[in-house]
């Protein structure tokens, strides 16, 4: 681990393995770390297991998945060693989520206000008034006009972009040390995507929160992150600083991913999908690995 001994890393994921009940492996010994204030992008195709890492950290994995091995440290504390409720509190105290789909991430039957302030009162022990003031200030900060009215609104009264702003405000409200941003711009249209991305970056820089930014968009990676983890079929392909990923990618899959990214700035630049031969080759290597893994387990 790279963190100094006095200040532990905000997040350490070590050798994390997750599998379906039938034994099919979804994550294969994934390791990554985030230092305080750092932004790490987690990239890969859909199905590569990107979101699952974030879910494992936050403790919201689907019930049917099994953690087969590894350890998660949040600010140096072993989450795996905790009782469920201690873990729940620890996560709530230091981490938050900016979810992928703003339409389902807000409770349709409740007003916006309490959805932001509930965790502040419940976990951080703030007074209702203080929580409300913080929420209003943050809604204003994410450029929502008339925050008082929005606090009284139901989610269906807001547009998708507005809801994502609300969710960003809610994520930053308890001043977490870690935010998992799970493809926060995927469900939005392109013009809104840019604003939301800029907003997350601004708030991240103001607050110095470490962010685990899950995305499949290499263009977004370049804009927001300092470190990149490239994932394929639940396995880490490459882990490097962002500049190096773009100037000198070490892994052929990383190179293929970059080549597959269309550029909005330069529409004439050619782009090509990740070659099938490369995918087949990588999958073959992983299958051999799995077989050896099973052999060792026996």
């Amino acid at each position, binding site marked *: 681990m790279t963190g100094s001994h006095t200040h532990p890393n905000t997040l350490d994921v070590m050798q994390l393995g997750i599998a379906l009940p039938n034994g099919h492996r979804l994550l294969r010994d994934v390791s990554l770390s985030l230092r305080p204030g750092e932004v790490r992008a987690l990239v890969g195709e859909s199905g590569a297991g990107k979101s699952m890492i974030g*879910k494992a950290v*936050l*403790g*919201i994995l689907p*019930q049917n998945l099994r953690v087969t091995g590894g350890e998660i440290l949040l600010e140096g504390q072993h989450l795996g060693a905790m009782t469920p*409720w201690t873990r*729940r*509190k620890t*996560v*709530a*105290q230091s*981490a*938050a*989520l900016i*979810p*992928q*789909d703003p*339409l*389902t*991430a*807000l*409770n*349709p*039957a*409740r007003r916006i206000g309490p*959805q932001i302030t*509930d*965790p502040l009162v*419940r*976990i951080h022990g703030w007074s209702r008034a203080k929580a409300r003031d913080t929420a209003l200030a943050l809604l204003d900060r994410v450029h929502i006009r008339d925050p008082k009215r929005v606090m009284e609104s*139901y*989610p*269906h*009264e807001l547009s*998708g972009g507005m809801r994502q702003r609300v969710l960003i405000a*809610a994520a930053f409200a308890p001043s977490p040390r870690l935010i998992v941003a799970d493809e926060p711009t995927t*469900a939005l249209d392109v013009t809104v995507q840019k604003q939301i991305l800029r907003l997350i970056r601004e708030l991240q820089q103001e607050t110095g929160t470490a962010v685990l930014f899950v995305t499949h968009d290499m263009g977004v990676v370049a804009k927001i992150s300092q470190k990149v983890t490239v994932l394929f079929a639940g396995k880490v392909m490459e882990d490097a600083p962002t500049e190096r990923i773009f100037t000198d990618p070490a892994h052929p899959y990383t190179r293929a991913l970059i080549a597959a990214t269309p550029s909005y700035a330069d529409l004439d630049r050619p782009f090509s999908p990740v070659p099938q031969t490369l995918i087949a080759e990588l999958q073959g290597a992983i299958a051999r690995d799995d077989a050896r893994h099973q052999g060792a387990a026996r």
Partner: protein
Amino acid sequence: MADITAAAPRRRARRLNLRLWLPLLWLGAVALAAIFAPLVAPQDPLMQDLMLERLPPAFMDGSEPGYWLGTDSLGRDVLSRMIHGARIALFVSLVAATATCLFGAALGLVAGYFGGWWDRVISRLVDIWMAFPPVLFAVLLVAVIGTGLTSVIAAIALIDWTRFARVIRAETMVQARMDYVDSARIGGARRLTTLISEILPNVLPSIIALLMLEMGIAVIVEAILSFVNLSISSDDPTWGSMIAEGRNAIHFAWWVLLFPLIALFLTVLSFSTLGEGLKQRFDPVLQ
């Protein structure tokens, strides 16, 4: 899922919702009549007068003033008996449906959200319970624990909680998969807190609709039990016992059967329509 929300229209100017107001009007009238029965009823519902037997309703030849809907074979006023019968019908439907709802919905919520063993035990119990034919079950129950209002209410609750448990379990499972549940958990909400303050508000419109439906069903079950003489003592007027008595005289005094039947029909229909109306009214997304 997401698209439905996005496509939901903004608050429309609310026009008068007949599905809400017509049933409310009828049920309000029945409720008022039931509460003030001794004041409203034109005659004593138990008073027999063989001189006045089988009088036709007021709009027919041979009617007597003061007997608006005619009299039965013992000369008792049909309208007065209906008004007093409404007391029992409404009391049973309110108490029985509420008890059924609380019990069934609680089990449905727990099974749907906690899953695992909770779900397995509750679901199997529902399966077993539903294997019994309901009316036979009710008759058997009342026969065993004895007639009377309490037994009728207990019978309804014991039979129909499965309806709530099944429907609410399914709805809860749908809601439990929503991202907002994960958000609440990340925000440090306990499982029970999540169930009550996040999921329950979203399931509530369905619970209300079912509750109204159940009130209608309770009215019917009470009528059935009265019909076979297993409700309260046959002297007290109930809609079911009136229908049973009217059946014998259908060829020469159809009004004794028809008017309680209409009251029963309208009340049951009103409950179920009101349920749907309320569901729409209280669902923030459908609004």
